[in-house]
């Protein structure tokens, strides 16, 4: 039997291929179903770790500062991400606040924490304690992290409100825009290369 990590299985149709080294920017596609089965990695461990630290800082800014200010006839108001989630937590509809909180605050937060933990150890060439559980959690969190949707939502809200009152973006919004880009860069599939990089033992 050939060495198994050399095999790569298309998750959309179960076709098996031999892994081939990819040049930068290249992607391998499945002949049978045309899905992308592997992309060349964009970042090495050092770069990913640095981006994760940047994301952590941006996360703090995005949550500590208001994302928008509005004013109307001398009155003014502002809201943070957390206050936006709280605004949904009213009586019967509180459940949706949990979903929104997961999508725009908790999923990104856990992604950053787990990536920081895993990559911090990988940076010095070690397998972090609880590595397997962290990697599993990262895979499960990915679909629920919706910062880019939130960013678009805030832009829609700005346009919606701009007609009736004065709206100005806050520091939180800029931080969030950068955080969104960083999360897209770090939370993708590049992280899976750690399994090979760290030579995680196979039982």
């Amino acid at each position: 039997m050939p060495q198994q990590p050399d095999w790569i299985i298309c998750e959309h149709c179960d076709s098996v291929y031999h892994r081939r080294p990819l040049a930068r920017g290249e992607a391998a596609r499945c002949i049978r179903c045309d899905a992308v089965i592997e992309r060349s990695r964009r970042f090495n461990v050092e770069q990913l770790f640095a981006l994760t630290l940047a994301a952590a800082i941006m996360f703090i800014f995005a949550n500590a500062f208001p994302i928008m200010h509005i004013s109307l006839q001398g009155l003014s108001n502002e809201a943070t991400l957390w206050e936006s989630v709280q605004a949904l937590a009213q009586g019967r509809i509180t459940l949706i606040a949990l979903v929104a909180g997961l999508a725009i605050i908790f999923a990104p937060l856990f992604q950053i924490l787990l990536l920081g933990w895993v990559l911090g150890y990988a940076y010095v060439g070690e397998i972090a304690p609880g590595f397997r559980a962290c990697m599993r959690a990262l895979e499960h969190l990915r679909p629920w992290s919706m910062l880019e949707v939130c960013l678009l939502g805030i832009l829609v809200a700005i346009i919606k409100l701009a007609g009736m009152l004065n709206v100005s973006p806050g520091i939180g919004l800029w931080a969030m825009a950068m955080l969104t880009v960083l999360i897209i860069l770090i939370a993708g599939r590049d992280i899976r290369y750690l399994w090979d990089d760290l030579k995680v033992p196979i039982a």
Partner: protein
Amino acid sequence: MSKPPYARELKVCLCHICGFACPQDAHECPRCFSPVHVRKTNSLARTWAFLIASIIFYVPANTLPVMYTSMFSGGSENTIMSGVIEFWQHGSWDIAILIFIASVAVPCMKFCVLGTLLITCQRRSCWAMRERAKLYRFVEVIGYWSMLDVLVVAVVAALVQFRALSTIEPRLGILFFGLVVVMTMLSAMSFDPRLIWDAEVNDVE
């Protein structure tokens, strides 16, 4: 070009978490210890269940108001469609189209696509397999953008809180709408696209 072999023919199966090619009889991935299955368990039944739940929730999501706006004199309640129409009438047709796509077109398309995939897979149809596989991936990618309206309501309701002058509050419809999105996401996740290709071979359990 000849088609690549199926994992089953080589007696391996894929770990969805770490991408490892596990031996077919393994219950647990030897590398990441997560459970592995040749096919997602009860894929069709689960996908149907979540899909039907999301279609049921879609009715109150569209008929109940999602937002209550009180401005100076009197208040009004908006459903998703009336919100879209309001944007359109105020000249912001781009936002109207955006919200319409995210809140109406995307969920409806997901219902149709998932329904089609389920029925064709149950019939072991060999029709347009490549295209169906692409449709599935498309649905997976666009699915969560439907959360747009929920997040817009959240941000707007958090901001517009001027007691006497004007307030905006979320209403029950937004809960159902959010549930529609979550249910369709779960439905798409439960579906196993490899079932599309199983129709090519007959001896799969």
